[in-house]
């Protein structure tokens, strides 16, 4: 999918549209063609984490910022759903959409403060925010269930679909894959939009962009909010699939995993973190079946990828396609 970010208005090319349609069909096809429920479940979980990593990747690509606290945005909507649903104040669908909107709004407001700083300082701030959410999740027992977690008492129907659609691996694979395709489309269109152009320019030289007459704080905060919103969409799917959320969901190690996925895939193209998530997930499963030291092997793999392919799988793909100019964040991916 391509859009002209300089001509005012999106232009979607036919080959791009066909590629996107083909990608969107992969998940549903897998749901029908893969007979193993276990594999379907793994694919569903990998797809959810791919959406998480995609959100982290948007922040790296567009803002050049690395977050160590995005798990907060992954788990927050789940906690909102779990806390508000029993009150019966509004339809469950509205609570889900409200949870997403609240997360994005919170990220925007937090972003207005923290995107002013760069590099390590920004990373530490996101870590602090993430751990603050984790502490809240563990200590507010009445609301969150503390360390025991919170079971979500979901209704029998959601968005007109039976609840089992969201909790059986095969059907949930279709749902999560379609959401992933939608989020990828959003990420592509954003990157190719004039707003995406502006955020890339700010990433490269914020002062220079200010000299051109732009105020740069709000665009950076909005990109942070978009990144959180995409992550939150993954979190909502996680909550629906498991009907459960626990503090581990918002722990910094979950943020670290998503970051590893994004780096493994490379953030210089929107599809990179998605590819990284699937690689990470299945590498973890494959190695984990042989040894309990799977994390060490993942760590070594990450070192190798970072040294040999600093731009991740996207960089490898670009190397295999000579003459293809790597768009954007070569220095951040």
């Amino acid at each position, binding site marked *: 999918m391509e859009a002209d970010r300089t001509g005012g208005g999106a232009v979607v090319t036919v080959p791009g549209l066909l590629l996107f349609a083909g990608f969107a069909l992969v998940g549903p096809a897998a749901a029908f063609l893969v007979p193993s429920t276990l594999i379907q479940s793994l694919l569903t979980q990998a797809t959810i984490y791919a959406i998480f990593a995609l959100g982290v990747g948007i922040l790296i690509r567009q803002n050049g910022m690395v977050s160590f606290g995005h798990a907060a945005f992954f788990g927050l909507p789940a906690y909102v759903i779990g806390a508000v649903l029993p009150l019966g104040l509004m339809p469950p669908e509205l609570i889900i959409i409200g949870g997403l909107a609240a997360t994005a709004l919170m990220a925007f407001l937090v972003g207005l403060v923290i995107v002013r700083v760069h590099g390590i300082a920004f990373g530490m701030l996101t870590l602090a925010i993430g751990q603050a959410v984790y502490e809240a999740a563990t200590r507010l027992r009445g609301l969150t269930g503390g360390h025991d977690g919170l079971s979500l008492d979901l209704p029998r129907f959601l968005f007109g679909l039976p609840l089992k659609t969201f909790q059986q691996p095969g059907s949930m694979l279709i749902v999560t894959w379609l959401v992933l395709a939608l989020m990828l489309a959003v990420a592509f269109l954003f990157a190719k939009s004039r707003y995406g152009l502006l955020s*890339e320019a700010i990433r490269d030289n914020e002062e220079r962009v200010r000299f*051109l007459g732009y105020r740069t704080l709000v665009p950076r905060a909005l990109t942070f909010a978009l990144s959180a919103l995409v992550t939150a969409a993954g979190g909502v799917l996680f909550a629906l699939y498991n009907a459960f959320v626990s503090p581990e969901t918002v722990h910094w190690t979950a943020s670290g995993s998503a970051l590893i996925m994004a780096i493994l895939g490379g953030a210089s193209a929107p599809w990179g973190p998605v590819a990284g998530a699937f690689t990470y997930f299945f590498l973890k499963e494959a190695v984990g079946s042989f040894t309990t030291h799977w994390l060490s092997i993942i760590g070594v793999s990450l070192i190798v990828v970072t040294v040999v392919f600093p731009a991740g799988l996207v960089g490898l793909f670009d190397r295999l396609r000579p003459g293809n100019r790597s768009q954007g964040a070569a220095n951040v991916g």
Partner: protein
Amino acid sequence: MNSLLAFENVESGYGNARILHGVSFVIAPGESVAILGRNGVGKSTAVNTMLGIARLFAGDVYIQGRRTTSLRHYTAARAGIAVVVQGRGILPNLTVRENLILGGAANRRGHWTLERVFELYPVLAERANSAGTALSGGQQQMLAIGRALMANPDLLVLDEPSEGLAPVIIDEMAEVLRRLSADGTAILLIEQNLTLVERVADIFHVLSKGRVVEHGRTEHTSAADLQKHIAI
């Protein structure tokens, strides 16, 4: 005060160091003004003061006739003053076309569009999809000027635009700046290259040790005299 940009007894600098000492000058609509001086006399500090980079200790800066107390990086651009900074400031990961598009931040209506810039500099049209930093030095300067024009400025400020360019490229730039001036765009040229100043500017101010030590009209002054002033 009917001016696009005016400095009135400006004292500015960095940290606690004062670089400019009581600098005053005025640029009226349509005028071409040059600020001359050797390296380190405070020429770029004058631009940086307007851009809110240098600290304003005393004096006043007027933009479009208004006394501006809070100078932010984007203040001048939004008021119709486009700046081609020293070193050109091409955004590295963007194409030529994308760099140009970003020049239109203030959404000011006027003569300059992408097509007009491509007419002015056909080489930019030919290389529209190349990375901005893949251009030669001269082409990058064209891109920087083109991007500034995309803002449809009333005043175009150029900080050392001839730096590192071949004489033939400087000649072409002088021709373009003359045409812009003839079309009514005011120009502030921060320069050491006297040939360029002579060809473009109507009025000059010579800076030495952060003070204006000489000023006048270029038509009444020879290059040799200018050189003498700068050497003071």
